[in-house]
């Protein structure tokens, strides 16, 4: 059994450190931090994407990485989308367009959508569906999730900037 090692990760703009076994999955480390249970574990097979976070500017499935691999990195989780009590346009979109039912896939959907809009601020429907193709939803049939992302894209295009504490 390997000794624990210290990892430093900046999570939603805040420096954190933890002693972890090498085999600790990144998702388990994230969820061990108080208040950061928004990142969900939905499967055992790396399919569902409910664990999606943004690490060093790229979406990853945090269940398919070890915490030690994120050492020194910058992480954005769903909790990092809100700023000073204001919802991110994506969160507003999911609310307005009923983009969730049980809410289990939602954090992953939000993070994948966030990354999509960062790269492609006005995606077509096909591009949105492609952008969330690593996230499974059992409730909604995806249509309202697409609408939620379109809502957010429109809001962001109107010039509504939403500055996050995480900067990458």
């Amino acid at each position, binding site marked *: *059994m*390997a000794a624990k*090692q210290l990892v430093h990760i900046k999570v939603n703009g805040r420096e954190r450190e933890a002693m972890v*076994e*090498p*085999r600790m*999955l990144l998702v388990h480390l994230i969820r061990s931090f108080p208040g950061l249970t928004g990142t969900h574990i939905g499967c*055992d*097979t*790396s*399919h569902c*994407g409910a664990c*999606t976070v943004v690490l060093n500017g*790229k*979406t*990853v*499935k945090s*269940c*398919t*990485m*070890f915490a*030690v*691999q994120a050492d020194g990195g910058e992480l954005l989780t769903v909790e990092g989308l809100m700023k000073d009590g204001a919802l991110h346009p994506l969160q507003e979109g999911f609310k307005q367009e009923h983009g969730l039912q049980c809410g289990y896939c939602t954090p992953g959907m939000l993070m*994948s959508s966030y*990354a999509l809009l960062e790269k492609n601020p006005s995606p077509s429907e096909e591009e949105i569906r*492609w*952008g969330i*193709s*690593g*996230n499974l939803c059992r409730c909604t049939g995806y249509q309202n999730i697409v609408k939620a992302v379109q809502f957010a894209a429109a809001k962001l295009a109107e010039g509504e900037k939403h500055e996050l504490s995480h900067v990458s």
Partner: protein
Amino acid sequence: MIPAAFEYLRPKTITEAIGMLLQRGEDAKILSGGQSLIPMMKFRLARPAYLVDINWISGLSYIREDGGYLKIGGLTREADLEASPLIHAKYPILADTSRVIADPQIRNMATVAGNLAHGDPANDHPATMLALRAEIVTEGPQGGRVIPIDDFFITLFTTRLEHGEIVTEIRIPELPPGSGGAYFKLERKVGDFATAAVAAQLTLDDAGACAGAGIGLTNVGATPIRAARAEAFLRGKIPDANNIAEAARLAASEAQPGSDLRGPEEYKRGLVKELARRALTRACERAGM
């Protein structure tokens, strides 16, 4: 869900990595993208006692043309290929292939080298690399070597790589003018492994006849399969609809599919024929036919 315990090693150079792998023996595995290895470890199908994480080694992430080859570094991610203007412009068969591997999150981590080194015939790049006649460049305990793609895949999950040997680069002979290629994959849902897939890369001469052909088949055998008879048939002929149909028929006869949840053998064979027809047709279009 939770992997067995292991010791985590973080080499700074290839040489250090090779040393670590040798010293710990067969119980040590390379951690690169990890998108095949980590799921296996979570099921405890793989229980390496040591993981040698090569992600921190610099200088292995590149896509460039150099010395008559397209060179892809050993740590280049699928997402890098997908985003590369060079790949889209001159090697669209690689863009076709990358974009149907898994999903966006997995493509951010997964490496092209890992997709080959894992030795899974269900992976997509092997067939494409067969079609492109790629070479695998490695560093290992005996020094460096270049493995031609036709020698690389041995059987299920088994490649020519020795323990301690690391893929540092995949190189593809630069394509001559009049070249075109395509990769067509049928999957049950986005992100799935192929029910079957075909990679086709053609070069046409000035008369529009086929000067060179590379055809690779995905997930219809214990290794990716080169449809050599289909390739030989096409050489010297104009790839019109009839010749493409015959080449597709030959490619299907060279597949060795097994019946499983993705479909029965005859279905997969028929699928190879249709996908080969589409891939060859698109390859011709891209070759400027």
